[in-house]
């Protein structure tokens, strides 16, 4: 199973623990919030899990690829090609 790191930006309070535990994949911006790498190489999978478990705000997650934690439109995946167009700012 392929997985990526994702952060729930509302839950994240910028502790920065994740970047300490996994500097290979996570860096902090100038305000202390994590910027995540896109892919997790297999050799770092265990460390990634550890960083997820250590997050004090429970904001860091490992998510199977394809289902993304964003506000992009993803109306039913099996629907017409329009469903693949990533929506949108504003209110549709």
């Amino acid at each position, binding site marked *: 199973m392929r997985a990526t790191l994702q952060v*729930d*930006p*509302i*839950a*994240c*309070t*910028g502790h920065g623990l994740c970047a300490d535990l996994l500097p290979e994949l996570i860096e902090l*911006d*100038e*305000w*202390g*919030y994590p*910027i995540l790498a896109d892919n997790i190489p297999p050799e770092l999978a265990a460390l990634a899990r550890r960083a997820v478990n250590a997050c004090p705000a429970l904001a860091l997650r490992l998510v199977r690829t394809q*289902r993304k*934690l*964003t*506000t992009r*439109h*993803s*109306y*039913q995946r099996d*629907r*017409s090609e*329009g*469903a693949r*167009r990533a*929506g*949108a*700012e*504003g*209110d*549709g």
Partner: protein
Amino acid sequence: MNHARTAARLTLDWQHADRAATLREHTRRYGPLQRQASGTRDLLDEVAAARLTGRGGAGFPTATKIRAVAGRRGPAVVVANGMESEPASEKDQALLARAPHLVLDGISVAAEAVGASAAHLCLPRTRDWLTECVLAAVTERQRAGLDRIGVAVHELPHHYVSSEETSLVHWLNGGDAKPTTTPPRPFERGVGKRPTLIDNVETLAHLALIARYGAAWFREAGTSEATGTMLTTVTGAVSRPGVYEVEAGTSVGDVLALASLQAGAEAVLIGGYFGTWHDIAAVAGRPFTAAGLRPAGASPGAGVLFVLPAEACGLVEAARIMRFLASQGAEQCGPCIFGLPAIADDLAQLAAGRPEGDPLSRMQRRFGVISGRGACRHPDGAVRMAASAVRTFGADARAHAQRRPCLAARRGRRHGWQQTAVLPVPRPFAEGEWR
């Protein structure tokens, strides 16, 4: 010579209207709304064939959205989005104030299409005149026994992010009018945990006309890429600012000509405060549509064009918008809470020609790390606007960065920004009021 293609559909007879059309006037104008005898499938096919897209800014195919909700189990909910939190847009309020029954027809049509058991219309709390006007229309319909389900009209806090789909759902469910993390998307689990269809009020008005006249009629206006008509708001350095209905595919230059572009104006903000700045000459020939503007890195958003007057400073205007957007976040996500004010400070220093350090390179770095890192797209839009200002007013930005600000900025420094600035930046809504 003016080549702009106007098409009065939603705006039929508006030139005579200084008030909302009554139900009787509305019915005379458009004919009665027939109940779909052959079921909702036909209507869905018509909407799909019409290729109607959302008019709230996202441009998502409306039929896809309706099908997604209709395909879920159990009764659904319809929410009409009349929040119009984009300060440079006036089209939704203009539509609701003059043709409320067109929107209410659309809600009725959408409710039938998705099998809804409840319908809501969300309006900003800052426009009580509009609420009164819409409520009067709702009462008229109740008396006439027109709709299967009633429409509940709500007044929400009017923050910039409160018009996001998830903000409406959260508020209608008893929470704050703030965006929430997704999934679940509202179509899966929205108001009252039910599948929820949320459409902009203009989109619903088009839906009401497609239900009456069909897809072929709808496509008579517009191009193969962008069908029908669209409402636009044109303001700034134009002699006749206001809301115009144009055929989709009309060029930016022709839309500007409709409002009578003033001489000397060189730059335009496309898409509103969430939009991008451009040289008019570079975009005038492009269709004012998503596909037409994409190569230029722009989007029509909710159909907004703001023309920068020749004597104004684009950096000053961009700095004011950025300050507004920074104050309009939901205060939920770190990159937005800290990143937007930081960029607003950078831009303000640049605009004033009083840089501390190197605001230009600081901004470039910050532009790169903020997008995509909030729960909603608020930070992305704000960053895009700021980046486009630095790009479009590049020569100006470099001069300002070397403490050689333009005349407008010097005047602003001397007499106060409010004296010289031109864009309408609303006073931020009472802080902390989200419920």
